[in-house]
């Protein structure tokens, strides 16, 4: 995504921009994290990398916001200057042990997408899947109590476009119902497992009552296919700066 430059000459590029610019534009950047820790997995960000990234966001004047704030802003609400959304998928135990303390320390917030079927009642029955440990319900409640936004990432993290209507309904609707039942407040946002979705799946998510959903790099500014930037191991603050910087016009007009 970053640094991808189409093979356009200046003339063709300028012409293309002149034609397309009225319709294009960038929404609030949404960063997609998964896990934080020492694993060698590419989607596991090292704790020191997360520290450096959160410090960069803070020192550069970025304000972390929730997806609810982003969608509210679409409907006339107000966002702070330089908004950015941090999301953490899957609900690994390191969301509570590594990510949360770092966010709280800096006064930042994030959206955690939880796989409801992987949440155990307590640590003694903690679910281990994909050789990883997942959050318990009390730990999910701890995220919520710390001011974090909780979203649904289905019941079992299955590829939704391949499911029958009944299975899809269960994954999309039941996960929300369970999360809301436990948390006692609305769960308004959804993350498609593997970022895999289709028109049929999007309709099911919308019908289930969600206000929006996130995908990966193939998204856009539509509330049910909100684009995210993948945060993988090795991203430096300089890389993040390149990913989040904007034109002077965007910076100027958003500051008004």
């Amino acid at each position, binding site marked *: 995504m970053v640094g991808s430059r189409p093979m356009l000459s200046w003339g063709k590029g300028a012409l293309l921009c002149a034609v397309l610019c009225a319709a294009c534009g960038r929404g609030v950047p949404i960063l997609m994290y998964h896990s934080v820790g020492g694993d060698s997995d590419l989607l596991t960000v090292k704790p020191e990398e997360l520290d450096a990234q959160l410090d960069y966001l803070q020192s550069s004047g970025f304000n972390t916001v929730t997806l609810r704030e982003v969608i509210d802003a679409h409907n006339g609400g107000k966002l702070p200057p330089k908004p950015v959304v941090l999301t953490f998928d899957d609900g690994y135990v390191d969301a509570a042990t590594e990510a949360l303390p770092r966010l709280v320390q800096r006064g930042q917030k994030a959206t955690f997408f939880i796989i409801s079927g992987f949440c155990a009642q307590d640590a003694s029955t903690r679910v281990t899947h994909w050789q990883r440990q997942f959050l318990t319900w009390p730990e999910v409640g701890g995220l919520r109590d710390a001011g974090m936004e909780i979203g649904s990432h289905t019941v079992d993290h299955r590829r939704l476009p391949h499911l029958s209507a009944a299975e899809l309904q269960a994954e999309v609707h039941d996960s929300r119902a369970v999360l809301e039942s436990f948390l006692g407040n609305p769960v308004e946002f959804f993350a498609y497992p593997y970022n895999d979705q289709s028109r049929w799946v999007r309709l099911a998510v919308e019908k289930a009552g969600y206000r929006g959903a996130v995908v990966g790099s193939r998204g856009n500014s539509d509330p049910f296919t909100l684009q995210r930037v993948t945060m993988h191991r090795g991203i430096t603050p300089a890389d993040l700066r390149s990913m989040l910087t904007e034109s*002077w016009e965007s910076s100027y007009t958003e500051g008004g």
Partner: protein
Amino acid sequence: MIAALLAVSAAAATGALPTPPVEDEIPAFGALGPQAAGATSVTATGGRPFYSLRVAHGLSDAVDLAAAFDYSPDGVYRPAIEARARACRAGPAQLVARLLIGRAFTSGVGMADTNDGEFALQLAVAPISRAALFVEGSLLGTTDFTRERTAGFVQGAGGIVVALPGGFSLLGSLGILQGVRGHRTVGSSGASVRF
């Protein structure tokens, strides 16, 4: 512009003297530009978003070309080239098209270097020869050829220019720059000298 070119061609064909430049009739238009053939102007303005310095030179009585340097205290430096062409003129009114292409270099936090383009149409009316009011609508585009930093903007502004003796003039404008996620006031004032 086509009409002006046709008029010049017709005058040349008949051997008659060409009509005097517009700026001789209405000095306020001379201050707004485009500069007459061979004339040069230096314009300095300050405000939001930019403090600007422009040197414009008339290529013909209807077209000039300017080298510009814009600076913003937010950390933006933008060298640019700007062309202006008088599209038409009717009595105390003129319509001018303006095209700017520049490269914005940034040192501010959260901003990236981009290529900027602007196309504007400016309608000016001079109720008296030494003062003109104008309104201008612009389409602006910015890109570094990534999706994240390619965006379009629109701007509307209005202003006044007053021509003083000796080729000096004062000008000021106020408007709104509208982006996808917000808008902000733009405005500047300054002085120009022609020689």
